[in-house]
């Protein structure tokens, strides 16, 4: 297969996935319609995560801080300052970008286990800050964005993000943008350098690359995409609480990406969708559903350490990005 053929296939696959998600809103029952909107927002978060973990090989245990930066960046400005949802979304993205660059300058001075611990500790600091400043954030209770706060006008049209259709399509736009950004990055020179760093940082440096700068760019991109997902979550679901800054929300994207396939562009969506429905289905049978989900995850990772799409790429579709 020539490189041009590969590019064509890759673009068609990604366009097909986006089209399928768009069409799903017309056939899904109301409940699954809502679930899929949430999955797409969380998949956008996981897509940001995989840029750092899957492609660059940096295992962060503190990504919830970037999600929370976006969540609070949007939530607090809309709630307290009366900003419009688009302005709040911009504030969320800006908060994520600034935080990820700051975290990068500190955390990227470490590697391996130390990097995991530093990111986890910094995320804990953000989580505790969200509780400490409870006067504005309302801590665990969180702030609720009313329907009026989530409504805005654009080109004469009124958009109400609390309505299921608007919410679904906004989530789809967010996910599609995240996916296409991820695809563009991994196929660009930066993406190749990120993968080279994951394979061996010393060798990459030996070939003339400033690996610190490349890792910082990967972290900033990853953090900003995660923040965009967080900001969207606040605006689409009308809630911003400190739960989203907790360690659980740093572990979830790792699980989604591991299951779907680290270093695959579509793996985060598959993983997020699969785990969301695993939890949904098993919680109907038993209160120990997390135990069941955990066992299933362990078995899946044992059977397929590269995740579902990673296994497919290894065995059948080597062209999958």
């Amino acid at each position, binding site marked *: 297969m020539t490189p041009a053929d590969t590019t064509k296939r890759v673009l068609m696959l990604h366009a097909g996935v986006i089209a399928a998600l768009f069409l799903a809103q017309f056939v899904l029952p109301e409940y699954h319609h809502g679930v899929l909107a949430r999955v797409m927002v969380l998949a956008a978060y996981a897509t940001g995560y995989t840029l750092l973990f899957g492609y660059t090989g940096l295992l962060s245990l503190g990504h919830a801080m970037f999600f929370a930066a976006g969540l609070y960046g949007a939530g607090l400005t809309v709630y307290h300052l009366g900003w419009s949802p688009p302005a709040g979304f911009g504030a969320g993205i800006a908060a994520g970008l600034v935080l990820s660059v700051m975290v990068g300058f500190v955390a990227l001075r470490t590697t391996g286990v130390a990097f995991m611990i530093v990111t986890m500790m910094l995320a804990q600091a953000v989580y505790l800050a969200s509780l400490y400043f409870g006067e504005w954030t309302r801590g665990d209770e969180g702030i609720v964005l009313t329907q009026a706060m989530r409504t805005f006008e654009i080109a004469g049209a009124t958009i109400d993000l609390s309505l299921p259709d608007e919410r679904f399509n906004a989530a789809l736009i967010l996910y599609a943008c995240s996916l296409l950004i991820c695809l563009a990055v991994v196929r660009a020179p930066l993406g190749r350098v990120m993968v080279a760093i994951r*394979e061996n940082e010393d060798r990459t440096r*030996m070939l003339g690359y400033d690996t610190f700068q490349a890792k910082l760019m990967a972290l900033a991109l990853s953090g900003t995409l995660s923040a965009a997902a967080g900001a969207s979550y606040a605006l689409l679901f009308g809630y911003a609480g400190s739960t989203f800054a907790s360690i659980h929300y740093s572990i979830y994207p790792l699980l989604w990406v591991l299951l779907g396939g680290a270093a695959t562009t579509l793996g985060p969506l598959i993983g997020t969708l699969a785990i969301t429905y695993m939890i949904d289905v098993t919680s109907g049978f038993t209160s120990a559903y997390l135990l069941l989900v955990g066992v299933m995850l362990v078995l899946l990772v044992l059977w397929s350490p590269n995740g579902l799409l990673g296994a497919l790429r290894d065995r059948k579709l080597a062209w999958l990005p």
Partner: protein
Amino acid sequence: MLSVHDIDCFYDDVQVLRGFALELREGEVLCLLGRNGAGKTTALKAIMGLVRVKAGKILLGDTELSALPPHEVPKRGIAYVPQGRRLFAELSVADNLEIGLMTRGKGRPVRDTVLELFPVLHARLNQRAGTLSGGEQQMLAMARALCLEPDVLLLDEPTEGLMPSMIARVRETIAELRRRGVSTILVEQRVDAVLPVADRVAFIENGRNRETVPVEALRTDLDLLHRYVGVGV
């Protein structure tokens, strides 16, 4: 063109290079010989900035390489093929070459020129580098380095673990690069494999360059190799 001026290098408290000096002339193949642990690989790493130089300096023309961060050295036109190939095993042959090309912003024409030297890689562009044979991996490591279009090439034991036909192929490649004007420093244990392509030989002992002689001198002074490397011609 490349000159090393009395450098000292350490691994923690252990001094490996002691006032090591060397001069590489334009378009020549300089073979660096010495016993195990003499400091040959460290000398190459010091040139690449991978080992810190505590005293002395390394110049490429007027540029002081030893003052640059490691990632800046290849951009100045120095490529390094380390011992053991050190490829990106999980990446394809094409991606390994691409990473070499991107360092100095080279494009497809450079890759095509490089692949003319290594036709075996042409058919394997989509294959994972880790699945190549030892000889093919060595070809790829050299090809990746040449994708930088270097003026200076540093080769660390390129014939290690290769069968005779591959050793001959490596030797031919070095000779071809010399014809193209690439200056090369070659570190080798297999003296017989490389002397036919070398212009000069530098002997390193206990971290010092003891002697640098034209390769012809080895034929008149039969004791040289035995003295510094422990083998005869």
